[in-house]
C-alpha cells in the first residue's frame, strides 16, 4: 500500500518538553531550527530534502535527544469504510 518515493520527504518533530534550548540544532541546521525570543525553539517540521544531512547532524547533536526524525505519513485519504 505504502510506496516510498526515491527520496522520501523529510519529517521531524522536537519534543519541546525535553528540549533545553542548548541550541546545538540551531548551529547544525540553521535553516530548519531557530530561536524565537531568548529560549523558544522554533523549527520546520517538513524541511526541504536537501538539508537531510544537516538535520541528521542536528538530531545527533541534541544533548537530550529531543529531535525525532521520520518519513512522511502516507495515508490513503479515503472515506470508504467497509462492511465486514
Amino acid at each position, binding site marked *: 500500500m505504502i510506496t516510498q518515493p526515491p527520496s522520501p520527504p523529510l519529517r521531524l518533530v522536537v519534543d519541546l*518538553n525535553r528540549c*533545553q534550548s542548548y541550541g546545538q540544532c540551531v548551529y547544525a541546521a540553521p535553516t530548519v531550527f531557530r530561536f524565537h525570543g531568548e529560549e523558544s525553539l522554533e523549527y520546520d*517540521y*517538513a524541511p526541504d530534502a536537501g538539508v537531510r544531512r544537516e538535520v541528521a547532524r542536528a538530531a545527533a547533536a541534541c544533548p537530550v535527544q529531543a529531535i525525532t526524525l521520520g*518519513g512522511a505519513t502516507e*495515508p490513503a485519504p*479515503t472515506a470508504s469504510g467497509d462492511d465486514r
Partner: protein
Amino acid sequence: MTAPAAAGLRTGRIVVVGASLAGLRAAEALRDEGFTGELTLIGEEPHEPYDRPPLSKAVLSGRLSCDHIVLPQVRNIDARWLLGTRATGLDVPGRRVELADGRSVAYDRLLIATGTRARPWPVQAGGRLDGVHVLRTREDAERLRGALLASPSRVLVIGAGFTGGEVASSCRELGLAVTVTQRSATPLASALGGVIGRATADWYREAGVDLRPHTTVRTLEGHPSGRLRRAVLSDGTTVDAEVAVVATGALANTEWLAGSGLAADHRGAVSDAGCRAMTADGRPVEDVFVAGDVARWPHPRYPGQLLRLDHWDNAVAQARTAAHNITHGPGEQLVHRPLPAFWSQQFGRYLKSIGVPALADQVVVTQGSLDRRQFVAAYGLQGRLVGAVAVDSPRVLEGYAALVESGAPFPPLLGASDGPDHLDPVDAAFPGRAAGSPPDHAVSAPAPTAHR
C-alpha cells in the same frame, strides 16, 4: 476468531478513532509492541496527522505554513487510513464503530483518541457572526491567519489561558491592536495561580496588549451585514473589534460515544489507570481503551479525582501505555502515571511546567526573579512539592521533576546559586479558593475554562 478479551492481542483487528498525535503514536507503538494484525485509523480531519502547538504560535505569526507542521511517522505502521471520516457511534457488545457514511468497522480492540475541540461562543451571544474564531485545527488557523492579514483595527481575545495568551502574543507580533478579557484577576490564574499570573500580566502590558482582568464578554454584536462590530463587556464597556478569538477552554469529542454505555461527556471519556474505558456504571471494558486529550483517568499520584491533561506530552505517553496494555495480558499491564509536563511560548518567553501547579496552596520563587522575567517558581500543597514552572530557564526543570516524583517537602531545599537567600512561600492565589484551603476539584485540571 476473536482473541479472548482478557489476553494480550498481537493479531486480529485494532481500530483507532482519532488520527492525530495520540492516534498516530498509538498506532506506531502497537506495531512496536508486536501487533501484526489489521490496524485501522479513523480520522475526521482530511489531513495526515499534524502538530497543533505551532497553530497559535509560528503559524498564526506567519513563520510556518500549515504544510510544514505535519508529524513524522517514525515507523511504517501499515495501517488502513480512513481520513475525512467521522465515527458517529459505538456498539460495545457488537464491537463495531459506526461511521458517518452509514457503514461500520469491526474491531477486536478499540482505542478512543478523539481529543477535544474549542468551546464555541454561544450562538445567542453572537457566536454566528462573521469574524468570530476559535483555534484548534489547521482550517481554524488558516481562517484566522487570513482575518489577521486583512489588518483588522483591533482583535479581541476572549480568555487569557495558554491559547489566549499565545494568540494575543502572535497578534502583537503582527502589529495588531489587541484587547484580552479574562474572568479572573490575572492571566493563567486557574493554571498557575495569581502570583505567577500577575507576572505574566506584565508581559501582556509590556507588549502593548489592552488586558481587561475581572472581565467577561457579555455579548458580541454585529453589523447588519453579519460582521462582528463590537463586544459588550461585563463591566458595561464596549470594545470595537472586527475579529474575536474565543479561547475559553475545550470540550471533549465524545458525542459519538452517546448510547454506547461508556462513561463519557464533555469533560472526557473515563478510563481506569490502565487506559481501559469505563462504563457509566463503573466497570472497565476489556477491549476499549482511551488516550490523549479526550481521556479522564484516576492518576495514582493524585487520588480521589479524575485527571484530564490537554498536553502534548500526555498524548504521546498515554498512547504508548494504551498500546502496551492492548497488546499484553493481565500480568503485564502498565499504569499510566506520568509526571504532567507542558510548555508555552508567548510574548517572546518560554514557559515550562511540570507536575500540577493548579493543586497548590503555596508558591515560592526559587530561582531568578519575577521582575527579571527569568525565574523558577515551585508549588506546594500542604508541605509537599507538587509542581514547578520555569520561565526562560528550561534547563533546571528536570531537577524539580525528580523532587516532585520523590514527594519532596515544600519549600524545596535546592541551594541554587541564583536563588534568593531565603525562601518566602506565599499563598498561590488560585481563584475561588480561600487562602490556605486545599483545592476541591483542582486536578480535574485544567478545568474546562482554565486551559487549552
